[in-house]
């Protein structure tokens, strides 16, 4: 594995002196056409940085199509890596440096305002000499424009350099780029080489060797041709950590929770959790079952859970819509069920690859009739891991469906967090197959809590027929009106009983002040960073992230009341009060704002956008400053 550093090799350095720029953080983007591996390079760069002790957050830039036309503005596929010398909680604002495989995908980022003024652009220059004059012209035009706009554009002969090692440089460029970045950011040479090797060794020694060469070539090119380097000091790690994306964390949470069955149907952006789980689940006796459709997947999970094997189904918005009837069934028949919804933009097919938090109210209310369920949201990658474990426990203890809301931002974002320490309490106990004592009823609801003991098929003396029809404590179809009322009441009381176990969430910032920003899920990091910035300017602003959305902990109302104004910021659609046709009679609020207004009778305001990307702390900061002006 040991290799000599390229600086010791014979090549003639072009650059004699290096300027080393020390920074607290930097935001790097890599963009390419789909299939050129920008994401792989970025994920690896992120992992290397995390392993060197930097705080990181990565987010993928994904076009909706698998193979959008090459060299198009909308086809930009790539990744953003924010690395800092502190704990990074979100994607940050605008990029400081971008590597682009062609000028069109670059424009896709420039024109949507994702680059800082004067940002450094490392641009593949093969297009300058391309045989198609239209392409040559487009390249030169863009190049000239970007230079005139003040960007620091550096042309890189990526293709040309890679051709020295491979006949198909299009597929190897990403490792060249990784090499460049590792040089620019002073990444540990040995660590980086190990990561590259590990990334490719599955495909054989030859492939790994070639990619290492390309990586080295990129590293060397940067060493020889770039007169600067960035030094972003390590945040320092005192305890073991892990770095992964949210979908991997979900899958590991499933393993850790002791679940045995995951039934799913392919849907973006949830599926990668099942891909990873499929690789490892059988090692713990588990099964990932790809069902014929979303409904079958949730039905399969309910069947497995009814038979005593706790099951999960993972999906995204359209799949949630399809599963709704059976989630209602699980609520009615009180079979534990964990449903993970990795949210994407909706309604309908919406924005399949992009982030939205539009399914909160649907998670609570979409079932016909009254179907109590628990709804929890993951705010961080770490949260994705633990939420599944928590969800299984709640589902089995309270015999109800638990919906875990993740989103596309968490699904592909990477962040380090303390390495989980396995606890046997996480794991489901073996199923009870002892004979059921005489007189035990399948729905022996405790009149106060609604709780009852679950009987599992195979238990002698426990035979009963469950039904989705209204039923009594014997599980028999209800023909008298009061029985339906009693069943509904007992199912609802379970939520109340669970709610009594919840503690109020912690306020970020002071417990009272002028403005409280309330959010849920993955916006936590960006909101808190924005709040921190305005607090440093002296404003009395705090933030609250609510994890348990149904039921909600006691004490939230008290928190809201200690602020002059409360604003929900979330990634779903809401009307802006300034719209010509909008007034208090018709204004539609963001999901959580609806909920808080209804529950607490507090005049909660909201601000939201559905851009299909995570919020940047800078834009939240602006909203906060605007909203502060409204406080009298």
């Amino acid at each position: 594995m040991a290799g000599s550093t390229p600086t010791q090799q014979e090549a003639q350095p072009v650059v004699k002196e290096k300027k080393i720029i020390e920074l607290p953080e930097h935001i790097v983007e890599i963009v390419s056409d789909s299939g050129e591996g920008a994401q792989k390079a970025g994920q690896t760069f992120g992992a290397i940085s995390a392993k060197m002790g930097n705080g990181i957050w990565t987010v993928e830039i994904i076009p909706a199509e698998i193979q959008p036309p090459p060299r198009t503005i909308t086809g930009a596929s790539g990744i953003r890596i924010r690395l800092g010398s502190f704990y990074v909680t979100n994607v940050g604002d605008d990029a400081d440096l971008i590597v682009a495989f062609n000028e069109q995908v670059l424009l896709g980022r420039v024109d949507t305002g994702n680059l800082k003024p004067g940002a450094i652009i490392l641009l593949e220059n093969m297009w300058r000499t391309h045989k198609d004059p239209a392409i040559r012209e487009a390249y030169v035009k863009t190049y000239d424009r970007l230079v005139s706009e003040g960007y620091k554009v550096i042309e890189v002969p990526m293709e040309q350099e890679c051709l020295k090692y491979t006949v198909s440089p299009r597929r190897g460029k990403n490792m060249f780029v990784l090499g460049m970045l590792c040089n620019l950011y002073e990444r540990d040479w040995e660590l980086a080489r190990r990561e590259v090797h590990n990334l490719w060794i599955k495909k054989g020694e030859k492939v790994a060797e070639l990619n290492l060469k390309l990586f080295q070539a990129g590293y060397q090119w940067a060493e020889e041709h770039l007169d600067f380097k960035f030094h972003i000091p390590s945040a320092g790690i005192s305890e073991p950590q892990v770095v992964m994306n949210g979908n991997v964390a979900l899958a590991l949470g499933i393993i850790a929770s002791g679940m045995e069955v995951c039934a799913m149907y392919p849907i973006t952006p949830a599926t990668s959790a099942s891909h990873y789980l499929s690789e490892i689940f059988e090692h713990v006796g588990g099964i990932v079952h790809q069902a014929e459709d979303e409904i079958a997947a949730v039905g399969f999970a309910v069947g497995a859970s009814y038979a005593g094997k706790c099951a999960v189904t993972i999906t995204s918005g359209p799949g949630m819509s399809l599963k709704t009837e059976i989630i209602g069934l699980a609520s009615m028949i009180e079979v534990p069920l964990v449903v993970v919804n990795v949210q994407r933009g909706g309604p309908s097919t919406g924005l399949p690859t992009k982030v939205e938090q539009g399914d909160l109210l649907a998670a609570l209310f979409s079932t016909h009739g009254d179907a109590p369920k628990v709804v929890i949201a993951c705010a961080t990658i770490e949260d994705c891991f633990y939420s599944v474990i928590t969800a299984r426990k709640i589902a089995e203890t309270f015999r109800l469906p638990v919906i875990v809301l993740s989103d596309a931002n968490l699904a592909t974002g990477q962040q380090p967090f303390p390495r989980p320490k396995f606890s046997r309490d996480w794991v489901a106990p073996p199923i009870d197959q002892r004979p059921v004592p005489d007189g035990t009823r399948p729905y022996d609801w405790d009149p106060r809590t609604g709780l009852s003991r679950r009987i599992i098929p195979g238990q002698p003396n426990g035979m009963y027929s469950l039904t989705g029809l209204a039923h009594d404590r014997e599980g028999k179809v209800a023909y008298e009106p009061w029985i339906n009322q009693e069943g509904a009441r007992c199912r609802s009381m379970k939520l109340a009983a669970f709610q009594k176990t919840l503690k109020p969430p912690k306020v970020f910032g002071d417990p009272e002040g002028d403005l409280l920003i309330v959010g849920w899920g993955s916006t936590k990091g960006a909101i808190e960073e924005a709040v921190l910035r305005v607090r440093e300017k002296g404003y009395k602003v705090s933030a609250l992230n609510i994890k348990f959305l149904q039921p909600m902990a006691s004490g939230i109302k008290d928190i809201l009341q200690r602020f002059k104004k409360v604003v929900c910021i979330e990634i779903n659609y809401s009307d802006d009060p300034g719209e010509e046709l909008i007034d208090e009679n018709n204004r539609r609020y963001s999901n959580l704002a609806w909920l808080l207004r209804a529950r607490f009778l507090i005049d909660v305001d909201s601000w939201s956008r559905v851009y299909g990307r995570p919020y940047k702390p800078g834009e939240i900061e602006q909203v906060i400053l605007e909203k502060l002006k409204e406080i009298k």
Partner: protein
Amino acid sequence: MFGLDLERLLDVEDEYRRLEDYQGSMPRWCSGCGDNAILTAVQRLLRDEGIPPEKAVFVSGIGCSSRFPHYMNAYGFHGVHGRALPIAQGIKIRRPDLHVFVNMGDGDCFSIGSAHWIHAIHYNINMLAIVHDNRIYGLTKKQVSPTSPKGLKTNTTPYGSYIEGLNPLTVTLGVTNVSFVAQAVEWIPDLLYAVIRQAFHHRGFSFVRVLQRCPTYLPDIFDPFINDPQNILILTHESGLQLDESLAKIYRNRVEHDPSDIHRAREIASDESKAVVGILYRNERVDVYDEIRRPKRVTTLEMRKAVLERELDKFAVNPVGGDNHNEKEA
């Protein structure tokens, strides 16, 4: 033979030998409903096989026939319309000890649940599925079903239905991995029992369609088959049905059919002028999903922890000076 008490042993054998041991609530089907005959046949089967009631699970969808689990003394799952099969698959996947039965109507299986029907045949998971096919929607009061004959007047087709009914047998026999296909009629209880029993003993997914009268909404639909026994085609084979003398006298229209012959099975299924009774197809050599996917060993807590730790190693970030396990391997 220490510890074996012969009397106790006999007790166990006899414990579940009465039909009453398998009877649940009193059926609330209409009098004359063909579902009663299917219920009796299944209760007889469980009794004769000596299946402990707690080891049998009956899964159904929604419809008249889907009340079935309530009338059994066993575990029952009366779920949602059309989705009995995926629920039954979930039950079976990690519980090979349970005998899983599925009861569906023609609307439940062939209409709203048709995707699951096709894929249940394809997955081929051990269970016995019985479709109670009366060619009409009963619980919702007389609407056209996928198997209703063309021209049938119903509440949604007052001028007669527009297209020829679907033939579930040819569809089933057309699916890759099909494992067991049989048909019976509820008005010949002995043959109904014989078919269901063979289906029960089959390894894999057994699909049995039972032609079943609805006395309320479509009482005469099977009259041509009932009034003239010549319109019933009995499939006999040494590995399929064998008729006793009394039945053989009535049902003379018989044909020897080897259930391993899928081409002949498809041919027979295609002719709907006769009501076929017997085993159309049987093949125990096709892939059985739940057996293939059964865990190779029991997972202990320690094994689970070991797998989790190994995976976490792959994503490990260690304090400076530490080392990652996977890097050692590399």
